[in-house]
């Protein structure tokens, strides 16, 4: 059953990101599980997207999740009896097409970084750690963290100007 193997592989690689993202947007674990299930079913129906690179598959899946969440929030708002503002609702409201394209492209660029470079950006930008904290988590000197953030951002910049379309062209 190649279909099932495909969905297995997607779940193994992206399931955690999908569920965590949906849970934050919806603020509701059960609803998040429904949304992830629906996103997996869409991946099953569109196996062609799964032939792309990892960053772009992840971007596609998270985009599908965001759209599904948006639909749910709208449907909920349309029924006055069920207007329950969850903490995550506001995160969905800034949904628009440009942003989706951007996050897929940026994810691809992140995916193209070396593990070392992605690691420091993860610690500093996404986990919000200081240079010193990141240094002790990663087990490297703070000076190395500092220089890696520079080279990682430079590599991102090169990759994003190459792709173009994100307002990064001409900045090199």
């Amino acid at each position, binding site marked *: 059953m190649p*279909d099932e193997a495909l969905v297995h592989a997607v779940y193994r690689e992206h399931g955690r990101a999908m569920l965590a993202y949906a849970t934050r947007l919806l603020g509701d674990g059960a609803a998040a*599980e429904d949304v992830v299930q629906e996103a997996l079913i869409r991946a099953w129906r569109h196996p062609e997207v799964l032939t792309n690179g990892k960053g772009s598959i992840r971007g596609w899946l998270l985009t599908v999740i965001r759209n599904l969440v948006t639909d749910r929030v709208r449907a909920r708002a349309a029924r006055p009896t069920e207007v329950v503002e969850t903490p995550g609702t506001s995160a969905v409201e800034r949904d628009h097409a440009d942003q989706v394209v951007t*996050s897929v492209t940026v994810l691809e660029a*992140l995916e193209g970084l070396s593990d070392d470079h992605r690691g420091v950006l993860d610690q500093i930008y*996404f986990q919000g750690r200081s240079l010193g904290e990141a240094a002790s988590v990663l087990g490297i000197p703070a000076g190395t963290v500092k220089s890696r953030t520079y080279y990682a951002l430079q590599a991102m910049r090169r990759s994003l100007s190459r792709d173009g379309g994100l307002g990064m062209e001409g900045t090199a």
Partner: protein
Amino acid sequence: MTDSSIPTGNPRAGPPDPGRHDPVELGALALGVLDSDRTRAVEAHLASCASCRRDLEDLIAVTDLLGEVPPEALLDGPPDSDLVLRRTLRQMRSETAARRRRRLPRLVAAAAAVVALLAGGVAIGRATAPEPVVVTAAGPQAGAVVLQGEGVPGVSMTAVVSPAAGWVRVSTNVRGIRAGERCEVVVLTRSGLGEVAASWLTSARGEREGTQVDGAAIVAPDDVAGVAVRSESGEEFVVLRA
């Protein structure tokens, strides 16, 4: 690209000159994690260095774009639980079964004819993968159906489904599933659902020579669509359709 410090135009050893040209600190500055002393020093340098100002602008543009990526996007691996995967696979199976039923009413009728024939104990022949063939109504149990066939490469199963009053007994022999797998025998219904009839842990010997596992499931005999073996996490090893 290297992570070691790059030449800074100031080959002297010793404490850094606060005004020197050292773009490496611009990354930390753009990310807002440079300490206040160094921030002041770099800002003083920026006032007199157009190259660093451009560099910093670009890096800040990159960090703005990073803001488009949800932090969860960097999480790897599966969630803590397989629940959603199991539910998804169940939905896929039931949709696939529904499609198959719509598409193949004639084949279902043909299979029913084969089963009827087998009630007389006629052997049809050996199964070839992936289509299982109903082989024989072996054993004393009237109306028992034997399914035999292969699943994922290396895995084969023989399953005997014997009708009872509103439920079925299932006797399976499964070979080729790697040792250590936690497996379930599932009786599939015509509506695409599955009822677990038994579960076991595959041994090395079971992998080589086959594991005999018997069970039962509350599925009406005429509602049995097949027998499957899955891992506990929903991975399908073999499905034989009745």
